[in-house]
């Protein structure tokens, strides 16, 4: 009994803390449905369009024809019959999203291009490198591996300026490559580290069996390593996409002319320029910009959870 009480209390406290992390998200989500006027009145509160829409919906259902309020974006209000008010309020609630989508669409596209190119590049290069380091004995094998791993010890800020200079000398500023290439270079190190660890754990018998079956290195890599490494590949994919999606400083600095702003730098540009005072649009933009990562997370974590090698070997 005492034990249940104890664990129950601990769980409760943990749950509260877990929920606390959601507060900023909920706050932003809530405000993304409110108009600027509402936000200026106060940061908390149910979006007026929501409460009006609910009221209108109730009246429609009840057959009550009493007019319902519509809060226009310019701060004025008007009364309309429930059916019209319902329709108007719903489109008002989504208005912020329509506006912000138009603004951030090019940034989103740039982010997609950069993230996908980076992730594919990192997956390809690091998996080949990790396979080579893990499955081949050659002189200097360990030295090369430790050399790569040692790159993890340098914090990003330390390499920021030198990398910038390299990119500038290569004439890559204000291009996609200014982001893709350094991201690939940076993302590989940790990717090689965890992939090599994973490949080391794949049973040697499988590779020997493949060798006897007639597989060379390329075939072993394609037919054995890659299909069996879905869990670790998805981890690397998620990590790389998250970090390049969220990277702000680097694109902000290298994309100074603004043609290829990605979502993070683009949002900052919006927030510091024309839309500085339009909180409602910004909040909606923030929400929209987080959707791709959410979707990725849901899909890419699946193979992760499945125990993929279970059953092929005697435990």
């Amino acid at each position, binding site marked *: 009994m005492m034990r249940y009480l104890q664990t129950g209390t601990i769980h409760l406290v943990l749950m509260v803390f877990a929920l606390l992390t959601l507060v900023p998200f909920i706050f932003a989500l809530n405000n993304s449905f409110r108009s600027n006027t509402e936000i200026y009145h106060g940061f908390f509160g149910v979006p007026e369009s929501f409460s009006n829409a609910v009221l209108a919906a109730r009246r429609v259902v009840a057959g009550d024809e009493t007019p319902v309020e519509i809060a226009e974006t310019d701060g004025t209000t008007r009364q309309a019959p429930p059916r019209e008010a319902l329709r108007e309020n719903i489109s008002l609630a989504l208005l912020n999203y329509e506006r912000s989508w138009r603004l951030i669409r090019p940034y989103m596209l740039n982010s997609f291009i950069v993230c996908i190119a980076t992730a594919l590049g990192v997956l390809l290069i690091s998996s080949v490198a990790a396979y080579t380091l893990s499955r081949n004995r050659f002189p200097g094998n360990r030295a090369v591996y430790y050399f790569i791993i040692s790159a993890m010890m340098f914090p990003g800020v330390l390499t920021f300026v030198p990398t910038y200079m390299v990119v500038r000398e290569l004439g890559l500023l204000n291009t996609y490559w200014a982001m893709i290439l350094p991201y690939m270079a940076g993302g590989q190190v940790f990717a090689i580290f965890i992939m090599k660890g994973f490949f080391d754990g794949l*049973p040697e*018998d*499988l590779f*020997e*069996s*493949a*060798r*006897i*079956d*007639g*597989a*060379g290195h390329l*075939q072993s890599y394609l*037919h*054995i390593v890659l*299909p*069996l490494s879905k869990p670790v590949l998805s981890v690397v994919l998620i990590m790389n996409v998250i970090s390049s999606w969220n990277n702000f400083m680097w694109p902000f600095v290298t994309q100074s002319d603004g043609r290829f702003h990605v979502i993070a730098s683009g949002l900052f540009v919006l927030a510091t320029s024309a839309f500085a005072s339009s909180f409602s649009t910004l909040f909606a933009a923030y929400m929209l910009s987080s959707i791709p990562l959410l979707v990725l997370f849901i899909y890419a974590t699946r193979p992760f959870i499945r125990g*993929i*090698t*279970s*059953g*092929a*070997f*005697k435990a």
Partner: protein
Amino acid sequence: MARVELKNLGKIYPGNVEAVKDANLVINDKEFVVLVGPSGCGKSTTLRMIAGLEEITSGEIYIGDTLVNDVPPKNRDIAMVFQNYALYPHMTVYKNMAFGLILRKYPKKEIQRRVQEAAEILGITELLDRRPKALSGGQRQRVAVGRAIVRQPKVFLFDEPLSNLDAKLRVQMRTEISKLHTRLQSTMIYVTHDQVEAMTMGDRIVVMLDGIIQQVAPPLELYHHPVNLFVAGFIGSPPMNMVKGKLVGENGSLFFVDETGALKLQTPNSREATLAAYENKPIILGIRPEQLLENREQQEKPGASINALVEVVEPMGSEINLYLSVGGQQLTACINTDTQPEVEQPHILDVDMEATHFFDANTEMTIY
């Protein structure tokens, strides 16, 4: 022709560990040869060198008439069944079996035909769409064997394929592999540490110890004529009783007397000439458990029987294993179930001296 020949084969692992020393062996076409020995004896290393998975330090390996020292595994025309099955977990049974053929770019129809045929031989036709994790241990091992069969290789290599199966399944698979050999008529090299597997399956058995081939012989020859103490003790279950002692001449006959003096057995006349040279020298007498015979009258025959204390009685069904003590010397006897010896009671057994073995205690080689 899938004759396999090892010439002065040697393997030294990094750290100067000599796993295989100067192994010479000819495995004939269509022969089933079993490499057997305790763990670390070099049997698996030998097999892996034949497979091409392990580099050869010295010597030569021929498959057919080709020297294969530097031929990669895929070009050796061999197939191997691993102890851990080593099935590809992400592929279906069909794909597992077809993989080798796909890599070799066989036509699809041919692959289908071969896989189907192998699946029928092994009785796994209904499992072809499953993945390895949905199979039982025995089924997985069948798939592993099937993967080897479809390739129709010159030589099959088995690396302790049954040691992960439970006892009953092991016996069943044992006979199946033997049947397979009869059916496929190809050369098979089989590694095991289980002497029963070796005895029951092999046309010839290669007994190894510490990287050295001790004896190569058909099962019964190995059993009846072991070349040394190790082979004698390794082959046969329960193992041969080894009694240290010496030969003493008495009244014109040679007697074996053990160290405690509790055992005194007359050597057969036919052997006296051979044994005469060992008179008064340390010698080891090897008596197989079934060479200790039931003495119905329970009357001691001087020089031909032992009077032992029964310590443990193990009824096996068709026979009884007796664990005995004679003057501190532990002996195992295997007698029929007609009699019921009692624990802690003395029991007299005759010794079939004609069938026993003598070993030189210094060289551990068989005298006869």
